[in-house]
């Protein structure tokens, strides 16, 4: 067993019966669900909207190279700079180089899962550059020294009391502060940081090929502030975020808002078209975009799982996943958690180390049912499982188990060779530990239906 899998088992076991965790997760996810149920009413035909988005993403990903080049050429025309990064390390070095050129000591950053993916904050701090998270949820997580718990709601697992306690510890505020007051505290701290920072870093929700635009959607205005005060704006994003046209936003912005947070449309939606032009009075003097691969082309190269690149990171599959709800985001041991994380992490970080995530699902199919771009998430988990077995990431007892299963399932007489009593004893011996302390074993019937039928040749009504 890999250490990743053993960590997963340990943490998930702790969280599964942590009732305080369960209460907070149930509460937060219930709020998300209520908002979503209301928000989705804005679509007269939700499935048509999802189908349209799916087809648009299919077209884009099948022609990814073409759209990326179109985006690049338009963005360059507007005076922006593009950096292609194949690995996390290349992206980090590129950012560090810019920091050094600008003599930057302080960076403000809006919410971005890609920066989590490359562990940007730690890297920059090791290089003596201060990075401040400006999204409130991410700021809370940064204060607590924790990674985000959820793609969209980073501090989902914390109650308002937890946050008040955290602010009290780290910022010496009154431990009884209410959410509104806590927000004002964060606002005051962050306002100063925006003014000091030499560089602002954002992610991108979409890249628009036809106009060379970068779309950032947010609810707090922190991304706008992060890109208004500093003289340099760096965008870092995965290559799959491109859309063919600015017109596609009419479909994707409402979907992302509704599936992400139950809103009709997110509060602040910004399209950046490059750095400040000669005719403009404000905006950053320089704008860089780092287009990150970091394993995405592994997914692109595999037609069976390619559709996982359609993901718009709305987090809906996490909200509805009973496994995610039970164990929380950190148990996954990967930046992307929940169903989408279990699908893509084995391809981004290696099947050998992360295959267990694809097995840690009941395949209930709720994720597939809810995905706004109709990724067949639970079927992709099945593909990953098959691939894992094909590549030999199994152990001999499991192989033997399935061999015996095949043999008995191919030969009916083997199932009938003993009665229920012996089967009860054998199964208990084999599975006692695996079945765990919270369940009784199912009991084999003395006679199977097969035996009953053979004896009576029929069933009397």
């Amino acid at each position, binding site marked *: 067993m890999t250490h990743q899998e053993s960590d997963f*088992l340990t943490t*998930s*076991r702790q969280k*599964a*019966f942590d009732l305080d965790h*369960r209460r907070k997760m149930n509460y937060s996810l219930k709020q998300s669900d209520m908002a979503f149920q209301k928000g989705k009413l804005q679509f007269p035909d939700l499935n048509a909207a999802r189908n349209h988005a799916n087809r648009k993403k299919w077209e884009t990903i099948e022609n990814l190279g073409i759209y990326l080049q179109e985006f690049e050429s338009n963005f360059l025309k507007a005076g922006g700079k593009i950096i292609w990064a194949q690995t996390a390390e290349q992206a980090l070095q590129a950012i560090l180089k810019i920091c050094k050129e600008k003599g930057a000591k302080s960076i403000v950053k809006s919410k971005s899962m890609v920066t989590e993916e490359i562990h940007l904050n730690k890297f920059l701090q090791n290089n003596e550059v201060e990075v401040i998270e400006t999204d409130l949820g991410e700021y809370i997580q940064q204060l607590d020294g924790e990674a985000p718990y959820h793609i969209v709601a980073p501090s989902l697992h914390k109650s308002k009391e937890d946050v008040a306690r955290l602010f009290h510890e780290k910022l010496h505020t009154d431990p009884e502060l209410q959410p509104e007051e806590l927000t004002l505290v964060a606002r005051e701290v962050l306002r100063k940081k925006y003014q000091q920072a030499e560089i602002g870093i954002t992610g991108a929700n979409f890249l628009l090929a036809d106009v060379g635009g970068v779309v950032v959607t947010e609810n707090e205005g922190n991304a706008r502030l992060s890109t208004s005060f500093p003289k340099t704006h760096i965008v870092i994003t995965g290559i799959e975020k491109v859309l063919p046209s600015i017109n596609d936003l009419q479909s994707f912005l409402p979907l992302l808002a509704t599936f992400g947070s139950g809103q009709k449309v997110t509060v602040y939606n910004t399209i950046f078209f490059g750095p400040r032009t000669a005719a403009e009075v404000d905006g950053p003097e320089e704008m860089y975009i780092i287009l990150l691969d970091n394993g995405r082309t592994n997914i692109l190269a595999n037609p069976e799982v390619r559709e996982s690149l359609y993901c718009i990171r709305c987090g809906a599959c996490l909200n509805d996943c*009973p*496994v995610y709800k*039970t164990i929380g985001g950190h148990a996954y041991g990967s930046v992307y958690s929940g169903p989408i994380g279990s699908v893509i992490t084995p391809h981004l970080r290696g099947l050998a180390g992360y295959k267990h995530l694809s*097995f*840690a*699902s*009941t*395949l*209930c*199919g*709720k994720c*597939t*049912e809810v995905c706004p771009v109709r990724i067949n998430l639970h079927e992709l988990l*099945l593909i990953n*499982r*098959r*691939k*894992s*077995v*094909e590549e030999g990431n*199994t152990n001999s007892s*499991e192989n033997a188990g*399935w*061999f015996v*299963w*095949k043999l*008995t*399932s*191919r030969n*009916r007489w083997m*199932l009938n060779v003993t009665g*229920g009593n012996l089967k009860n004893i054998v199964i208990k011996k084999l*599975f006692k530990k*695996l*079945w*765990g302390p*919270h*369940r*009784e*074993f*199912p*009991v*084999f*019937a003395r006679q*199977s*239906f*097969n035996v*009953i*039928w*053979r004896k009576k040749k*029929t*069933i*009397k*009504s």
Partner: protein
Amino acid sequence: MKVHLFIPCFVDQLFPQTAVNMTRILQKVGCEVFYNHNQTCCGQPAFNAGYWKESRSVCSKFINDFENAEYIVTPSGSCAGFVRNYYRSLYTNDQKITKKLPGNRLYEFTEFLIQILKVDDVGAVLNGVATYHDACGALRECNIKAGPRQLLSRVKGLKLLEMEENEVCCGFGGTFAVKFEAISTSMSEQKVFNALQTGASYLISTDQSCLMHLEGYIRKYRHPLKILHIADVLASGW
């Protein structure tokens, strides 16, 4: 109407009475019931575990076992959904087999009663309060939602109360239940709590696999909740 039974492996071994009950009901509503006693399993366990080669071998047997059956009825939405939706991926481009696939001839039991036989009242009587768990296989693989409720509404003496999160998975998931035992039981605990909240004394579903798993938890903690497959309910009182 001639009907062939497919009795899933775990129902055959653990819950034969449910299979007997389903047979009795089908006969009561006028079906001539056949059972190929060579049958075993639909092949889903190995498929879900990633062992597609082993699965295919068992699926091929299933295809042969039911080659000549016009209607196949099974007391499991999970098995029906698997055969219907996933067999194709095991035999891509193998046209000799794909035209023999039994998916469109295989029905989950309640689906068969409602959609094919157009029967929703089999004369069952069961006094008490029940809640219904939407099994994932039935709900999402077969789109079964209203049918079982319609059947239960016709059971004399039975009052059906919906629980919170009735569409949320029970946590069984086949090998998931043993590979990730803690997550699995935590999910069953939450499901059982939701069921108990309604005050129901019966927990009913189309799928005995969910119920088997939930029963393990219920028995361990001696909760006052009895699990019943819908065939067991419909065979009550006559």
